[in-house]
């Protein structure tokens, strides 16, 4: 029996599998990777959600959720990766994101025979696909399916509720304070706004359009959501800046909100929480009486 376990574990160490990542790149990975580096905070969250954090040996700066992630060794920030740190942690697998991780670094890791599995989440559906893919890669398909089903359930619930709404309030989602930056159609925040039953006043082909105050006044948003890593004091200041313009419906009705940006801009299972939050901000009337 001991011999059998030894043989099996030996096989597990030496066996390799060829996988295709979500960009269609083929790579060879050990069949059970146990030294994984997450090259973006969102990947860290996904690995933790799959309860495989014991297999993580490195994360990037700003990997702050869950709290335990912050205690893992850092390999630079996701746009400015520290190649030497990555190599010194002897990873058998890196998981990266297409938007953010520089292609140069991914190419160099390939040259150094460190497999990089790249994902490319573009919205809620592809977050679920990403979960399934990483679940498959780490041999925890069942856990991934469970998470996906839970996400789908919560999304369906929000959408059913929002369907009863009579209006589609105009939402201005501000992710940059100075300059004023919002989110266009090719972002997942846009998708969240639409699914939450709102209309994104900044929709358009630019991902992160910049606005002047005057343009925002002209768009007459009913709701302003400000997400920022900035502190509460700064939010108060931004809020009082907007409050000088009572002609904006959002100002007139006191519907300016500050939210944690991590719930909206990280393609992780938590995006559903962002959706639920947004739906409550856009359609408070539909959620009355709910906890």
């Amino acid at each position, binding site marked *: 029996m001991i011999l059998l376990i030894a043989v099996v574990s030996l096989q597990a160490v030496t066996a390799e599998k060829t996988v295709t990542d979500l960009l269609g790149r083929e790579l060879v990975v050990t069949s059970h990777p146990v030294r994984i580096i997450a090259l973006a905070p969102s990947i860290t969250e996904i690995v933790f959600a799959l309860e495989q954090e014991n297999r993580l040996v490195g994360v990037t*700066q700003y990997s702050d959720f869950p709290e335990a992630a912050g205690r893992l060794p*850092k390999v*630079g*920030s996701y*746009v*400015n990766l*520290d*190649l*030497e*740190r990555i*190599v*010194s942690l*002897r990873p058998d697998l890196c998981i990266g994101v297409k*938007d*953010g991780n*520089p292609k*140069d*670094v991914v190419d*160099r890791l390939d*040259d*150094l025979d460190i497999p990089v599995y790249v994902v490319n989440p573009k919205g809620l559906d592809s977050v679920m696909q990403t979960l399934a893919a990483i679940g498959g890669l780490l041999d925890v398909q069942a856990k991934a399916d469970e998470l996906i089903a839970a996400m789908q359930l919560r999304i369906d619930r929000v959408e059913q509720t929002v369907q009863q709404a009579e209006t589609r309030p105009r939402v201005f989602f501000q992710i940059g304070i100075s300059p004023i930056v919002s989110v266009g159609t090719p972002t997942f925040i846009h998708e969240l706004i639409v699914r939450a039953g709102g209309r994104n006043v900044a929709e358009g082909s*630019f*991902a*992160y359009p910049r606005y002047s105050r005057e343009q925002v006044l002209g768009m007459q948003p009913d709701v302003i959501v400000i997400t920022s890593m900035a502190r509460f004091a700064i939010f108060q200041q931004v809020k009082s800046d907007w409050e000088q313009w009572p002609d904006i419906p959002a100002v007139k009705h006191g519907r300016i909100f500050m939210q944690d940006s991590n719930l909206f801009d990280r393609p992780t299972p938590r995006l559903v929480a962002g959706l639920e939050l947004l739906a409550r901000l856009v359609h408070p009337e539909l959620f009355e009486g709910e906890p």
Partner: protein
Amino acid sequence: MNQTPPNLLKKILITTVVALMFFLVTVLLGISIGSSGKTLFSVFEWLAGKGDADPMLHTIIWQIRLPRVLLAAMVGASLSMGGLVFQALLRNPLAEPYILGISGGAAIGAIIGILLGLARFPGVTLFAFVGSCATLALLLMMTSGSTILRKDSLLLSGVMVNAFCSALIMFLVSITQDARLHNIIFWLMGDLGMVGMGQTGILAGILLPCFIVFFLLSNTLNLMVMGKESALAMGINVQVMNIILLVSTSIMISASVSYSGLIGFVGLVMPHLLRLVLGSDHRVLVPACIFGGGGYMVLCDLLARALPRQGEMPAGVVTALIGASLFIYLLKRAK
């Protein structure tokens, strides 16, 4: 210049060997220190050919640190040479590729190349070359004509060319929306970390011929420093030499900029230091400048890597801190 050839040869040899030693020490330091720890001892073991071959350490030293050190060395050597040649040709001790806006011109070309999605070599490098030639032509046009090459007018023209280049760079950066923006910004600040061994080989292939040209023409440089009339009297075709030297410098600067981004003031430090120690004979200065400049840049990059506790800062910050202080000192002394 009054020295007899054997004496001169000896001086060239000695200074070259000393500069080479300095360079090799910096390289050794450069491959010994990195974000995963200091491994000076292991490097010596490696060089001695013993010690356990830890494949991870091997990879870190030879495939991550060495290409970076070599890139820094080549960039430092070419920027220092650029400073030396400009200072001689323009007869201005404060001339330097970055201050004159030549690096900025190369950067504009390189950014356009990156935005068009071209490969580093030859696409981006070629665009950078066109950019640096354009700014060089603009600079020469502004300073030639009726006015003589006065010290202040050349520097002022350079400052203006540089300001214009910076504005164009900001314009290009601000109209860029996608993920390439990050790449451009990191590259602009002087990112030496993302180059593999193959690319350092390509850069060496571009730079070596330029270095040889400068070494062969080092005596010509001596004569041209004395002024157009005396150079003509010595039988030098000033116009042709000017073009050869300026074009080689442009090739060198644009190749360096397209690999390393904007690293300023490097061309000021080494030429001045070496002239102080070695005198003004370019036959001695050229080889010393190549190795000295290379070593200086490796040290600056090492500081940039080692000083911050988290991550690293761009090497351009270190070179500007040192170089700009020297510039201010030199400017004050000149007055």
